[in-house]
């Protein structure tokens, strides 16, 4: 299941809903992304007061559903969940939740890792940071591109970027 929302989420409640009624589940791997206060700025590490997540409504849901389907295809998952927030968030706030439930612990852990790596490079979100009453768009990180490459070939119909053509 995927959700794109402004509202915060409660990980305990999401976990209970995800696993409810399925007693084949032996493990749930979860990743929660938070807004960091210190970020890489033009003059090294510096604090931000907030960030705003812009997204592309419609495409976001389509891409998240595609990466979730890919995870379900690659690993034997009983259930999975992606919740991604948009709008203005302050340091310490939750941004994203990925949860993968499986009878097999390895499948849950690998699928969760895969989903957060893919999200970082495929989901159409953009972060605008506020620092010292100025704002700046966050640059994509080459580490994130490298992290996603470990998972092998991307889905041809949904994930090619311009530069790869």
């Amino acid at each position, binding site marked *: 299941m995927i959700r794109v929302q402004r509202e915060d989420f409660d990980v305990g409640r999401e976990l209970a809903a995800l696993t409810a009624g399925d007693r084949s589940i032996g493990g749930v791997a979860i990743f929660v992304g938070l807004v960091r206060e210190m970020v890489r700025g033009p003059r090294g590490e510096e604090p931000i007061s907030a960030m705003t997540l812009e997204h*592309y409504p419609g495409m976001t849901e389509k891409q998240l559903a595609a990466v979730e389907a890919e995870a379900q295809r690659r690993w034997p998952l009983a259930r999975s969940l992606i919740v991604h927030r948009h709008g203005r968030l302050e340091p310490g706030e939750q941004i994203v939740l990925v949860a993968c439930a499986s009878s097999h612990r390895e499948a849950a852990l690998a699928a969760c890792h895969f989903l957060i790596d893919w999200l*970082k490079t495929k989901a159409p979100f*953009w*972060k605008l940071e506020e620092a010292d009453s100025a704002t700046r768009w966050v640059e994509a990180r080459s580490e994130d591109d490298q992290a996603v490459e470990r998972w092998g070939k991307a889905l041809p119909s949904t994930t090619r970027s311009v530069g790869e053509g």
Partner: protein
Amino acid sequence: MRLLYFAWVRTKVGKGSEELDPPATVEDVAGLLAWLKQQSPRHADALADLARLRVAVNQDYVTFDHPVKPGDEIAIFPPVTGG
């Protein structure tokens, strides 16, 4: 043809979306970007560095040789930074 802009592409162009009718000679993404640059100095600035742009046609990532046609929803944006 519906054009959508996000993040700094949006702020540079000065709007989040617009309806445009490029000439029939515009057949793919590369042709569309070249034509869009000529629409205003703001478009030219936003689209100056093609290596920093990503394009989606009808909400799927595409390469520059992907065809475009009337009725498509075409989004232009920087590399994504979510998660």
